[in-house]
């Protein structure tokens, strides 16, 4: 891996995170929002592995990435369950339906 490859991968990381955030902002479906979160996390994972490679401590990078995968999967599962629940309760996946806390 040379310098240019490193730059490329960092750009991919930024791109994935950016696409994820963009999805969070524009979508009107809870499931789409969860997909956006997943995309962000993919970018972060790649960043951790890259950091491990650059610092020469691949083990630490991989172990942290593993933690992120575990946590992220749980977040996705719980979020999906919540989406299902919202759909049953409100009949829609639109997050704007959830603003009932606001008087």
């Amino acid at each position: 891996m040379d310098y240019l490859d490193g730059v490329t991968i960092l750009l991919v990381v930024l791109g994935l995170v950016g696409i994820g955030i963009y999805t969070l902002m524009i979508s009107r479906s809870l499931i789409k929002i969860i997909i956006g979160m997943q995309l962000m996390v993919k970018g972060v994972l790649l960043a951790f592995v890259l950091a491990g490679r650059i610092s020469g401590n691949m083990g630490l990078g991989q172990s942290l990435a593993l933690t992120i995968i575990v946590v992220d999967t749980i977040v996705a599962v719980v979020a999906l369950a919540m989406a299902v629940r919202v759909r049953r309760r409100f009949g829609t996946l639109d997050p704007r339906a959830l603003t009932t806390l606001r008087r």
Partner: protein
Amino acid sequence: MINGWLLLLPIGIPWLGCLAVWLVGDRRPRLQHTLAVIFSILAGVAGLALIPWSTQRLTLLLSLGGIFDAFRLATDGLSVFLTVVATVIGSLAVIFSVDYMHGEHSLGRYYAFVLFFIGSMSGLVLTTSLLWMFVFWELTALCSYALIAFHNDDPKAVRGGIKALIMTQLGGLGLLFGALWLYTYTGSYDIPQFLGSPNSVPPTVLSWMAFGFLIAAAAKSAQFPFQTWLPDAMEAPTPVSALIHAATMVNAGVYLLARFYPAFEAVPGWRFAVMVVGMLSAFLAALMALVSFDLKRVLAYSTVSQLGFMVYAVGAGGVFASQFHLMSHSVFKALLFLAAGAVIHALGTRDMRQMGGLGPSMPFTHVVFTLGALALAGIPVLNGFWSKELILEVGLGHGNPTWIVSLMILSTGLTAAYTVRMVAMVFYGRGHQDHHEAHDAGTAMKTALIPLAAGTLTTWLLLGPFYASLKLSLPHHKLELNAVWEEAVGKAGVSEWEMTFKVGLEILREPSTYLVLLVVVLGVAAWLGRARLASLIATFRGVEKAAQASFGFEAINEVVVQAVQRAGEALRATQTGYLAWNIFAILLGWLVVLILTMLGRAG
């Protein structure tokens, strides 16, 4: 090493029980009662099994990797003693609950949190790592909140729970900052190491830590100026009040001060601040107890007042006296609360004006309640008398300010007065017509009350062994017993039990003991003769009004709450509730941070 695992039992057994009770589900209440009782008794046995290690150090170290501190547990006199209090009184409270909570819904939640609390409290006192102490500290706060708000369909209970949670969290910050400072300067969270060399931390930081810990302790123990949460916490089921808000959790603050006393002793102004906090709590809360009509609130104010005595004792240099009073107090106050619970359970009201004349219909409760009340008032031979005397002896010596100790002695008089008032209003006088069929305590209630009543009569006998174990196992604490007595009891060949006897005799020989007793008798007489003192009392009408309004602290509290609420209402406009705009705001924040760092780098 195999013994080290014993230390996990008082934490692990209740937590296992918590899981078990919760998994059983609310459809089988009988099984839930049984499981909770079994697990809590096992925890009590595990706590008692630690007693042989109270004089030697038994340690357990579980490595958790480099980033976090290792999970460390160790025994010494102080921690074993508090573990025993937590687990044994915990199991008695659970046994009491079998009758008290009979037929209530969501028993699973109730027992799970009680058991979780017992485990957390054991962890709090057994751990020797400040970080883990903070973790357990907050776990007990969580349990306290959840159990105060147990009747979560009652807005008052929920309010009380949230109030307790916010106040203790606020104090917990002091502990957290203390822990982080310690870590910053010494690179470890180890408490014994810190106690051994407090000067490894710079003096300014040490004093910040000392006062941070004082705030944490005051918030946890409901001391001045945080005393308002404890009375509101009385919405909790009564066994919970007995366990958490009288016998164990509120003592955590006193424990913290006592544990770190050797490190902070030399911090200028700290001891004085501790004494003033204790004195104000003891005095003001005693006044409030004198005018309150809610039975549980009277007991709550009295708890604040007695905790004030302990805090004062720590400040005055009497670590042993404070811990000895802690022991007495947790026994007799748990007894009082549980007996009060039996009364409340029988009548369905907490208003003392609705009670009266209950003596004949509830003979058993009457006897044990009176026993606890006498101990609270400081009548000789009961445990409260000896420990209170010890505290006042400490206050009189050591060059402590006289005006503070005089106010403390006055507080003992007030204590006697409100105790007599409470007993008289509940058990004597004209009874209400509709209360004649009030039933006495049930079997489970009696099972829990009898050991506590026996303890009220006898725990003071443990003075010698308790002192010996603390003395042996706390190398950094300079434990006090009056220097003269120390000589008398320190001779070779004097056994621990003889020591109790000798110290007792010495207390009886001290002239100040009789002064205090006189004040106590005056307090009793003041209540009994209140009709004759009517004119005098009338002049104190203003004080009574102020006491009923918690001396304005409730008002300050309200103002803070109102201000926060209004600010919240004003800021509501910025919360659209739409995800897109929230993310947009985050992005904007990110942008600002990036630009600022860039400017910082350029400049």
